[in-house]
C-alpha cells in the first residue's frame, strides 16, 4: 500500500485530479454519496467503469417494496435523489400491504430502467461541483502505519493518481465478480460489464476482512413470445402516489405509465425437471462458494428447501418503455442454459418464450461491515468510507441509503462536525446501518419491516416528520422544501386540534351515517376525534358530520387519520423509544480498555474490544454481550464520568 508521497516519487507519476471527496462506483450508493457531498459544497470526483451504465438496475427493475419503500421516502426526506428520480420513471405503482396496517404499507414501483439511468446521469452532470470520470480504480493511497492510517487518494488502472482526504468506496457487486451459468464460470460483473479487479486486493492489503457473497437474477424474455393471456393480470394501482415529498399532493404529477405485471406458476414438471438435474446446479455441485440470500432463493433452491410446495409463482414484469424485455421474477437460477430453456417449457404461458438474457448467479467480494463505525467510516483508517453492497447488503434502496449517509458523513468529517447517525427509532436507514455495523451479516442483507423494533413509528407517511428536520439541518433540503414541510405539519396539528373540538350530536343524520358504515349509533355527543378511533370509520366517511371541514391535501388527511386512530399504540411505541434512547445516549469513549473491566465475561471483553461500540445501547445489541455485562458497563461508565 503506497502513500501519496511514495506514489508521487515513482517514475511517470501523474496526479490527474484533486478534490475534497472521491467516490468510487456510480451505482445507487455512489450516486447518492457523490450528490450529497457535492450539494453540501464539496468538490467531488465520481468514478465509474463505464458512463453508459451508471445507476443500473441489473436485477428486478423496481424500486421500493416492504421496508424498502419506507426507506426510499426516508432518503427523500433527508434530501437524497432516489425518490425524486423514481417518481419520474415509474411505469407501475402499487401500495403493498394496503389492508395490513399503516406500519407496513409500502410503496413499490416498476421502473423504466434505461430512463432511470439516463435521468441519474443528467442529475449528476448538472451538479456544478461534481465531476464524473470513466476510470477503473485499482489502488488506494494511504498514509501512516497500522492503527493510525489516513486516506490520501486513489490510483486508477491507468496509473493516474487522484487525491482526496475522504474516499467513499461503492463498488457494488463488481469486486472480483464472477458470473456463473451452469458450469460456465466467467470473470464478469452484472450485465456483461467488466468486473473490478485490483481494488479487492487493495482492501485485503489494508487488512480488512473480506468474504464472498452470491446473488442471482432470472432471465429476460421477449414480450411477444410470452402468452400473457394465460396468466393472471396484476394491474397498477389507480391512485399512484409519488415517493418524493416534493411531488406529494401535486396534481400535475403522474407516473410515466401504468403497465401491468402478470402472474403464472411453475408446475410439477418444473419440479421434476430441476430435481432430475440438480447435479448440474453449480449451487449444489460446489462451483458456487459464496453465501446466497435466503430471502431471494433461486428456483432450484426453493425446490430443495421446500419440497412440499408443488408450485411457485412467477411474475412477468415490464422493464421499461423502450424495450420488449420482460423480467421473470421467481425464476432466478444458475442452472445451465440447456436446463433453463427446458424449464420454460414447463411454465404455462412461457412454453415458447424467447430468452433474451439468460439467468445467472453472481459472486462478488465484500467486507465484513463490523469493521465500520456507524458513520460508515472504517475504524482505524481515517477518511475511508464504505457504502452499499460492499458492506454485505443487497438491494438498490439499501445501497442508496448507505451512500447518502456516507456522503453526508464524509463532508461532516471534513468540516470537523459530529457524524450523522440515524438511530433505530428514527428510520429504517438507522435499522439497516446499525444491523450491518453492530450485528454483522452472514448473507446478503435485505431490509425487512420485522427487523425494526418501532415499526409503527417508521411509516411511509411520516418519513418527512421523522427525518426532514435532520435533512434541513444537514443542509440537503432546500428552504422551499423546508417551508412546505413546516406548512404540512402545521396543517396536521391544526386539523387534529380542530377534530378534538368538533362535537357531533346524536341525530338522524349521524345514526344513518354510522349505521351505513357498520358502526353503532351515538349514545351521546361525541368528539369527531373519538369517532375517528373506531376501526370501521375513516376521515372521508365522517365528512357529512363535519360541515366546517376545509379541503386538506390527501397526505395531511392520511397523517391525521393515522395519528388519531393509532394514538394508543403510538404512545406505547414512543414510551419504548424513550427507554431505548437512554442507553443509546450513554456514550462509550473510544479509549476504554475492556480487558480491564472486572465483572465483564471473557466473551464480552473480546467482542467489545473488537467492535468498540459507540454507546451502551449499541453494545447491548452485539451478540455475546449479555444484560449482566451491560449492567457492569453502566456502573463502570458512571465511575468513568464521575
Amino acid at each position, binding site marked *: 500500500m503506497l502513500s501519496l508521497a511514495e506514489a508521487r516519487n515513482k517514475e511517470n507519476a501523474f496526479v490527474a485530479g484533486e478534490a475534497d471527496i472521491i467516490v468510487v462506483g456510480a451505482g445507487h450508493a455512489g450516486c447518492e454519496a457523490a450528490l450529497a457531498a457535492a450539494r453540501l459544497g464539496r468538490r467531488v470526483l465520481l468514478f465509474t467503469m463505464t458512463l453508459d451504465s451508471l445507476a443500473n438496475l441489473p436485477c428486478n427493475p423496481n424500486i421500493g417494496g*416492504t*421496508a424498502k419503500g419506507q426507506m426510499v421516502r426516508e432518503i427523500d426526506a433527508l434530501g437524497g435523489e432516489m425518490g425524486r428520480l423514481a417518481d419520474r420513471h415509474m411505469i407501475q405503482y*402499487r401500495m*403493498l400491504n*394496503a*389492508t*395490513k*396496517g*399503516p*406500519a*407496513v404499507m409500502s410503496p413499490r414501483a416498476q421502473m423504466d430502467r434505461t430512463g432511470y439511468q439516463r435521468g441519474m446521469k443528467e442529475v449528476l452532470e448538472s451538479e456544478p461541483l461534481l465531476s464524473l470520470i470513466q476510470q477503473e480504480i485499482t489502488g488506494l493511497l494511504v498514509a501512516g502505519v497500522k492503527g493510525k492510517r489516513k486516506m490520501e487518494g486513489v490510483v486508477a488502472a491507468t496509473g493516474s493518481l487522484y487525491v482526496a482526504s475522504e474516499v467513499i468506496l461503492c463498488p457494488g457487486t463488481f469486486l472480483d465478480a464472477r458470473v456463473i451459468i451452469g458450469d460456465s464460470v466467467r470473470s464478469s460483473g452484472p450485465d456483461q460489464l467488466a468486473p473490478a479487479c485490483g481494488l479487492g486486493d487493495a482492501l485485503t492489503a489494508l487488512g480488512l476482512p473480506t468474504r464472498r457473497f452470491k446473488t442471482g437474477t432470472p432471465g429476460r424474455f421477449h414480450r411477444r413470445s410470452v402468452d400473457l393471456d394465460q396468466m393472471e393480470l396484476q394491474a397498477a394501482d389507480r391512485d399512484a402516489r409519488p415517493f418524493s415529498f416534493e411531488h406529494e399532493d401535486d396534481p400535475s404529477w403522474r407516473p410515466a405509465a401504468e403497465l401491468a405485471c402478470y402472474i403464472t406458476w411453475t408446475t410439477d414438471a418444473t419440479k421434476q425437471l430441476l430435481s432430475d438435474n440438480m447435479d448440474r446446479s453449480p449451487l449444489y455441485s460446489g462451483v458456487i462458494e459464496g453465501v446466497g*440470500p*435466503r*430471502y*431471494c*432463493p433461486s428456483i432450484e433452491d*426453493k425446490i430443495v*428447501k*421446500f419440497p412440499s*410446495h408443488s408450485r*411457485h*409463482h*412467477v*411474475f412477468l414484469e415490464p422493464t421499461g418503455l423502450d424495450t420488449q424485455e420482460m423480467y421473470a*421474477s*421467481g425464476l432466478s437460477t444458475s442452472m445451465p442454459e440447456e436446463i433453463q430453456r427446458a424449464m420454460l417449457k414447463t411454465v404455462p404461458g412461457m412454453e415458447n418464450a424467447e430468452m433474451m438474457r439468460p439467468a445467472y448467479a453472481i459472486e462478488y467480494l465484500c467486507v465484513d461491515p463490523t469493521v465500520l463505525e456507524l458513520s460508515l467510516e472504517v475504524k482505524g483508517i481515517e477518511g475511508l468510507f464504505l457504502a452499499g453492497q460492499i458492506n454485505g447488503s443487497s438491494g438498490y434502496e439499501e445501497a442508496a441509503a448507505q451512500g447518502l449517509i456516507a456522503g453526508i458523513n464524509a463532508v461532516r468529517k471534513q468540516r470537523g462536525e459530529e457524524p450523522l447517525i440515524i438511530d433505530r427509532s428514527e428510520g429504517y436507514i438507522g435499522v439497516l446501518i446499525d444491523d450491518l455495523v453492530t*450485528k454483522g451479516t452472514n448473507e446478503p442483507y435485505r431490509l*425487512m*419491516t*420485522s*427487523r425494526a*423494533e418501532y*415499526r*409503527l413509528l417508521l411509516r411511509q407517511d411520516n418519513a418527512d416528520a421523522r427525518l426532514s428536520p435532520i435533512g434541513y439541518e444537514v443542509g440537503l433540503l432546500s428552504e422551499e422544501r423546508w417551508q412546505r414541510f413546516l406548512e404540512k405539519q402545521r396543517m396536521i396539528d391544526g386539523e387534529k386540534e380542530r377534530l378534538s373540538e368538533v362535537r357531533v350530536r346524536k341525530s338522524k343524520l349521524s345514526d344513518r351515517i354510522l349505521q351505513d358504515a357498520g358502526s353503532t349509533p351515538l349514545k351521546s355527543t361525541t368528539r369527531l376525534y373519538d369517532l375517528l378511533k373506531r*376501526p*370501521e370509520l375513516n376521515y372521508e366517511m365522517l365528512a357529512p358530520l363535519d360541515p366546517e371541514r376545509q379541503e386538506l391535501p390527501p397526505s395531511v388527511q392520511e397523517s391525521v387519520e393515522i395519528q388519531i386512530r*393509532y394514538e394508543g399504540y403510538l404512545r*406505547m*411505541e414512543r414510551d*419504548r423509544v424513550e*427507554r431505548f434512547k*437512554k*442507553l443509546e445516549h450513554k456514550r462509550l469513549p473510544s479509549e476504554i480498555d475492556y480487558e480491564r473491566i*472486572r*465483572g*465483564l*465475561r471473557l466473551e464480552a471483553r473480546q467482542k467489545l474490544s473488537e467492535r468498540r461500540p459507540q454507546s451502551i445501547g449499541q453494545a*447491548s445489541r452485539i*451478540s455475546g454481550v*449479555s*444484560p*449482566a*455485562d451491560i*449492567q*457492569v458497563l*453502566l*456502573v463502570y461508565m*458512571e*465511575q468513568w464520568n*464521575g
Partner: protein
Amino acid sequence: MIDMDLDTIAAFSTPPGESGLAVLRISGPLAASICDRLFVASSSRFKKPSAMEGYTLAHGYWGSIDEVVLACFRAPYSYTGEDVYEISCHGGQAIRQAVLDSVLAAGARAAGPGEFSRRAFFNGKMDLTAAEAVMDMIGAQAEKQAQVAYRQLTGGVSRVIHERTDHLYGALARLEMLLDWDEEEERPEDRELLVHELEHSEHELRLLADSFAGGRIIREGLAVVIAGSPNVGKSSILNALSGRDRAIVSNIPGTTRDTVEIDLTLNGYLVHLTDTAGLAIDSQDPIEREGIMRAENALRAADLVLWVLSPPLPPEDERLQEETRIERCLEEGKELLLILGKDDLRPTLPAEEDPAYYAAERFPDLPTLTWSDRSEDDLHRLKEILVRFIEGGILSFTEETLSVTSHEQVKSHGEGHSHGMLTHARHKVAVDRAVELVGRARADLQAGLSFDLVAISLKEALTELSTITGEDVSETLIEKIFSRFCIGK
C-alpha cells in the same frame, strides 16, 4: 431493556431462608403508591405511606398477608437516594413470597443483583471508594449470574420456554411473513388461522405460568407443617424424618409448646419442617396459647400439612373443632395429607375409635398414610411421597403419588419435572406478562385490528420471554420466517 430511574424495584435485603423477620426494600417513584395500596395502618395515629415523612415507622397489615412494620425513607435521604420503603414482615418463606408477589403485582420489578447499590451510586449517595467496592461486588455477582444464565440457556428453563413458545414464534413468523413478503391483500383465513394459533400459545404459556408454584418449592424448599391434637405423635414424625431427636418427645400432652423448625434435605430437595404445638382448643396456659398461635401462623405459610390423627380420638366437641380447622386449611388451598398415627395400636381398637374409619367417614377425599413410629417402611413411604410431591410440580396428590409400595427405595424420578417449571419470581412475572400480551393480540385480531398492531403485542410478549432466555427476538424470528416459509419471488 434496562431502566435506570423510571421504574421501581423491590427485593428482600435479608438473606433467603427461614428467619424471624425479613425486610423487603422497595425503591423508586412508585414505592409510595404501592405501599398506599397494600398497607393498612393498625391505628389512625399512623399516616398513610405516601404522607409519611422520612425516617418514620408505621405499624399495620400488609394486605391480608401479614402483620408488618413499615419504614419510610424519603428521597434523597435514603440508601438509594430515591423514595425507599422497607417492610419488616415475618420470615416464613411463604409469607416472604406472598409479600414480594404483591409488590411485584402492584408494579414494582424484581431488583437485579447490586441494583440498590447501583442506584445509590448514580444518585450520588456513595463516594468513589464505596463505588469501587460495589463494582467488585456487582462484578462478582454478574459473573455468577452469567454462569447461571449460561446454564439456563443451554438447558433447563430456556428449553422449556422454547418448547412452550414455539407456537408463539410460529404465529408471529406467519404474521411477519404476511407483512413482509405476501403482496396479496389480507384473506379471512389468515386471520382465523392466527387466532387459532394464538389461542394455543396462550394456553401453553398459561400452563407454564401455573408451574411456578412447584418451581418455587424446588428453589426455596417445601414448607411442611405437622399439625394435630396434642399427643398424637407429631414430634415423632419430625424426629423420624430428620433422623435425630430434635424435638423432645414424651407422652405428656402439650410437650411441644413452641413450634420446632428444622431444615432437611430429601434427595437434594430442601424441606422446611415445622412441628407445631398440639392444637389444644381451650388451653388456659398462656405459654401453650402462644404456642398454638405460632402453630396457626405456621399453618398459614405451609405448602403441605401433615395432619396427624391417632387413637384415642379426642372427645366429640374437640373432634368437631379439629374438623373445622382441617376444613379451614382446605379452604385456604392447603394440600393436606392425613397421617393415621400409632398404627400399631389400631388392631386393638373398636371401629369408632379407629382414626382410619373416622377419616374415611369425615374426609373421604383426603389422601391418608398409616404411620407407626418404629416402621422403616412407613418412613420410606412418607419420604417417597414428599419427594414425588416436590417433583410433581403441581401441589396435588395423584393416584400415582400414593401408589407406592413400602419396599420401594426412595428415589428421585428424574429431572423431567423440574425442568418443566418456573423457579424464579422474575420469570413468573415475565410469563404472566406474555400471557396477557398474547391475549391482547388475540383480542385485537378478533376485533379486526390490523396485523401490524397485532404484531406489536406478540413481539412484546416474546421480548418479555427473552428476558429469561436472553435471545435476540428479531434474529430468532427471522430464522423462523426463513425456515418455515418459501420466501422471495
